[in-house]
């Protein structure tokens, strides 16, 4: 008995020592993370106090110049508003269409390893090029207007959505798929009948979220000549029409809020089911 209790004491001591070293390791990791964050602020000049001296005054002046918002030219905004919304919707839809097969291949269970790696590389490339750069490229390729905006959003969002889709597909519960495999359903059949039905709400969720994001991104793309509200806002700023710019920003806010509310509603419906 005494040897048994001795060995148990040893075991307890080992577990406690292990716990201490885990705590130490976690503290070191936290300290390293904080150091990186602090260094990032320092490097970008965030701790450079003189830079802030006139900032507040300028912001107040700018805000004052932008008040009250000037909606007098509202009749001209309908078209750019629709352009921006259409760019976001079309860009997201095109991205989702491309991202689904790429995501399936990148998920690793439904394609040979080299094909899977190639798909991942393609998705990484599409993602690592910002949509603004894609926009410049497509403006050169197809000219000004909303079309390069659609293509630019699609290119970047394919990279993002493909990655999300792949992760979601990988994390689906394998049990229903195993059930189908046990009765002789092919891998493609398992994907179609067991995996996709499980993850459809989450795929829809990230796609709608991406659509919201693309609405804001579509505005920014206006800056490089891809049409829409963004172009109006930038033009207003260039003409020092701050009151009109603030009115346009309010319109933008209303649009983003409306689409956001709609997509929240849709997502809830999908996730809750009925």
């Amino acid at each position, binding site marked *: 008995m005494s040897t048994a209790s001795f060995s148990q004491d040893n075991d307890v001591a080992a577990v406690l020592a292990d716990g201490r070293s885990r705590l130490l390791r976690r503290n070191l990791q936290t300290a390293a993370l904080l150091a990186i964050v602090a260094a990032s602020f320092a490097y970008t000049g965030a701790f450079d106090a003189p830079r802030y001296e006139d900032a507040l005054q300028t912001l107040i002046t700018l805000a004052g110049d932008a008040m009250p918002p000037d909606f007098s030219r509202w009749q001209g905004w309908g078209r750019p508003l629709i352009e921006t919304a259409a760019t976001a919707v079309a860009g997201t839809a095109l991205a989702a269409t491309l991202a689904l097969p790429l995501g399936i291949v990148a998920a690793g269970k439904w394609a040979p390893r080299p094909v899977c790696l190639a798909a991942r590389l393609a998705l990484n490339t599409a993602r690592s090029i910002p949509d603004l750069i894609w926009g410049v490229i497509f403006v050169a390729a197809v000219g000004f207007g909303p079309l390069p905006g659609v293509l630019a959003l699609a290119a970047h969002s394919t990279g993002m959505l493909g990655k999300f889709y792949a992760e979601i597909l990988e994390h689906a519960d394998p049990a229903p798929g195993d059930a189908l495999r*046990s*009765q002789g359903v092919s891998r493609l059949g398992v994907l179609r009948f067991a995996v996709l*039905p499980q993850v459809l709400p989450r795929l829809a969720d990230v796609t709608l979220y991406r659509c919201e994001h693309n609405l804001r991104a579509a505005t920014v793309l206006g800056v490089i000549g891809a049409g829409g509200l963004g172009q109006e806002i930038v033009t207003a700023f260039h003409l020092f029409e701050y009151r009109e710019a603030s009115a346009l920003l309010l319109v933008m806010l209303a649009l983003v809020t409306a689409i956001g509310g709609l997509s929240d509603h849709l997502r809830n419906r999908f996730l809750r089911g009925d």
Partner: protein
Amino acid sequence: MIAARSSADNVVPFQPLWRPAVTLDGCSVRRGSRVVLREIACTIPARAITAVVGPSGAGKSTFLGVLNGLIPSLGGAVEVTGLGRLDQPAVLREHRRRTATIFQEHALIDRLTAMENVLLGLADRRHPLSLMPWPVEHRRHAAEALARVGLLSRAHDRAGRLSGGERQRVGFARALVRRPRLLLADEPFSAVDPALVRHLGDVLRRAVAADGVTLVIVLHQIELARAVADRILGLAEGRMRFIGAPDEFGAAEQARLFRPNRRPKEKEECHA
């Protein structure tokens, strides 16, 4: 018929001569460094009920996985009577077409309705890329299977909204809709109240008696195993410790099978 001889020399009265449906010979399964099944050799009698019992972690679910081909066995052979060895892809494909499994954790898709889950039992009869809705014929079979387990009234409720017992019944229906020749059931009564155990037990017995199904059922209720089975397989620590008729599986055999394993390195004892 007076008596029948099985491979383990068990004399069982009032049974037609059992033919083996599946024969396992020297099958082992490894998970990482752990051996889950060791050198399993046994036959599964056709058109009969075989109950698999044993303490938890004995390898019972793995045993079913070997039978439906989800878990490949290391060495040894699984031979399906009339088809051949399971390590041949064509045999495996045909064997799976004739097999259905009821899973312990149901393995349902919560988002889909009970009906849609049952239809998945027929997923191998459709092209994976077909965009057509399920054929009427399949829907009728699925509805009939739900009726057999008494769940037709909830056909269009989502599986996620059903109780544990109801989910288990959907799992039953998904297996029955396949009209399998070999039906594997992993603790199918674990989430089910006693009245329902009787009902579902009858459903299974009828499948065996009327449709000639071969049933292999993992049970933790030993009394139930004695009552329903034609043959009992006792697994412990990955080894087949008992093969015999229910009346041979007495209190002593049960105690030996379920004896807690105090000294893992102890040398192996002989089988029952």
